[in-house]
């Protein structure tokens, strides 16, 4: 009670009578989440407006409905504006008063948001009360220019062996995850968030997961998983579920970028995952058509490319003068029947610094993650790769490429010459090593040690079918008998000199011990 009285006192003392008049508009028509407003001739693009139901109503009636409905001005017309309704559109009626708020759409940002689930307006939706974040930032802003940026040179480890070895991601990079539905796109993103737990707290990025047009049950499951794995302590979820208005689904990625930029500007690293931009594009198409903007290819508006480019361009690695922070973006795109040449996929492929392509065929064959290494690429990540990973992973892409060429002959294995058979077996072994289940991201030092073993022939003593089980045993062996070696790899980020010698000795012991075990089991 006392706190309420204090709040009232504070508000009253802060209030000052504002003389003069304010510009208002009147709702002319409303429907499909769009309001046509007469007046507001001085309103600007992306300005927030408030739909005010208090005019012509008694005070008691006006106070009955305390939740305000905001709108966003998106079309400036000759005799009025069109605004998208950011809330319950059923509360808007013809003749309703619309007040300008004299500010661009802004959301609260800051440390208090960490660990919270918020909507694209920054309002918490996790039932834990107000976030307490007070700093407001406009949701749209221009990306940093060339002078303010530095080259991407620090790795962001995903904990997924195939990615960290062959398609490395750097902090400040934009790497697209693309594939059909149900091929494991979200799993890679979630594993990446969970894996940040393995990073030292000082360099651990703040993770922002933006769920666009998803089922609320899926988001709830994801939050529960992140909480269980202790990952929510450095994660923020921005959610615009499938039931949210198209405007909120369109705004969600921009809200995620705005929150991420706050941390980047504090000199910290941030990772933002947009899951997924196909649904955002669909929401934007819906809004644009309702705003009567002319449709273009696949009925998307003409500025659909700019929508994604201006969003993804906000990912950056800042220069030292700007604090050296970074914002890494992992946009996700869902393809239909593996068609990467559709409008939105080609747009986003051309904007990003590389793509991880997931294939339904590989997924059905049991490959996890189902990455098609042939057409997946990271354009800037290799310069951010650690020396250890560069050294161990150098040969993998080549070996797998050779394997893919020979793969078709696998069914004639009895008629193959020894050299071809050897290459096929090496490829199968490598594929097995890179196989990795969902929710088990590996720390960098373990990835490097395992891939070192695979590329240096230590697993050649085992048949390709055994490699999966052997790898699990190898990981246990490393954790039990070589923790100092792992720690040294993690610290120096290099495998050379004495460290390499010790690692080889440990691997020789492992092969001597387990190679004989498995070969005796085989006989």
């Amino acid at each position, binding site marked *: 009670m006392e706190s*309420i009285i204090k*709040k*009232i006192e504070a*508000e*009253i003392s802060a*209030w000052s*009578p*504002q003389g*003069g*008049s*304010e*510009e*208002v*508009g*009147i709702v*002319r028509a409303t429907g499909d989440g769009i309001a046509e407003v*007469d*007046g*507001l*001739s001085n309103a600007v693009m992306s300005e927030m407006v408030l739909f*005010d139901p*208090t*005019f*012509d109503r*008694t*005070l*008691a009636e*006006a*106070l009955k409905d*305390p939740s*305000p409905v905001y709108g966003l001005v998106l079309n400036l017309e000759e*005799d009025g504006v069109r605004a998208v309704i950011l809330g319950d559109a059923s509360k808007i009626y013809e*003749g309703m*008063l619309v*007040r300008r708020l004299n500010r661009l759409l802004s959301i609260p940002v800051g440390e208090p948001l960490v660990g919270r689930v918020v909507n694209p307006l920054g309002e918490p939706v996790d039932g834990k009360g*107000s976030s307490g974040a007070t700093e407001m930032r406009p949701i749209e802003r221009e990306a940093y220019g060339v002078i303010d940026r530095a080259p991407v040179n620090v790795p962001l480890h995903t904990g997924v062996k195939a990615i960290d070895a062959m398609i490395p991601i750097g902090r400040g990079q934009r790497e697209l995850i693309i594939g059909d539905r149900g091929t494991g796109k979200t799993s890679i993103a979630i594993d990446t968030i969970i894996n940040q737990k393995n990073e030292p707290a000082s360099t651990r990025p703040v993770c922002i997961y933006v769920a666009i047009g998803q089922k609320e049950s899926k988001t709830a499951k994801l939050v529960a998983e992140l909480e269980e794995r202790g990952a929510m302590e450095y994660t923020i979820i921005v959610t615009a579920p499938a039931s949210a208005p198209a405007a909120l689904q369109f705004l969600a990625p921009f809200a995620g970028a705005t929150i991420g930029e706050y941390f980047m500007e504090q000199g910290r690293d941030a990772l933002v995952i947009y899951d997924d931009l196909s649904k955002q594009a669909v929401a934007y198409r819906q809004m644009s058509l309702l705003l009567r903007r002319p449709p273009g290819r696949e009925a998307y508006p003409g500025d659909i490319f700019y929508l994604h480019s201006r969003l993804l361009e906000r990912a950056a690695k800042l220069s030292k003068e700007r604090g050296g922070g970074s914002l890494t973006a992992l946009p996700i795109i869902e393809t239909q029947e593996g068609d990467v040449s559709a409008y939105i996929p080609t747009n986003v492929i051309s904007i990003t610094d590389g793509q991880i392509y997931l294939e339904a065929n590989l997924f059905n064959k049991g490959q996890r993650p189902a990455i098609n290494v042939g057409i997946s690429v990271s354009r800037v990540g290799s310069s951010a790769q650690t020396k250890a990973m560069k050294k161990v992973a150098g040969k993998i892409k080549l070996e797998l490429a050779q394997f893919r060429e020979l793969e078709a002959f696998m069914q004639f294995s009895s008629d193959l010459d020894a050299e071809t058979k050897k290459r096929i077996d090496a490829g199968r072994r490598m594929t097995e090593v890179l196989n990795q289940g969902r929710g088990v991201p590996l720390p960098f030092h373990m990835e490097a040690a395992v891939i070192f073993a695979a590329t240096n022939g230590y697993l050649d003593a085992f048949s390709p079918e055994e490699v999966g089980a052997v790898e699990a045993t190898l990981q246990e062996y490393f954790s039990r008998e070589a923790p100092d070696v792992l720690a040294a790899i993690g610290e120096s980020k290099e495998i050379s000199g004495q460290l390499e010698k010790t690692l080889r000795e440990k691997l020789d012991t492992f092969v001597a011990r387990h190679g004989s075990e498995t070969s005796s089991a085989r006989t």
Partner: protein
Amino acid sequence: MIKNYDLFIAHLKRTGRLKLLPLVLHELRSEEARAKRLSSKTETAAENPSLISGWRTLENGMLTDRSGKSALIDIYKKITA
């Protein structure tokens, strides 16, 4: 606004643009409706004189509040949010 409709229709006939008449009427109706919506309105806040009093008026797209009703509602919303 059109002052002499007969003259206006004669002009349309003469210039061969009589087909535009329904559209012109539609525009005129919406203009009229718009003018009506934006016409001046006044409300007096006298329901609870100990809490608020005064008036609010809406004219030419400008809202003038001399009642403190908006401020009171804003404070209430901030406190209850």
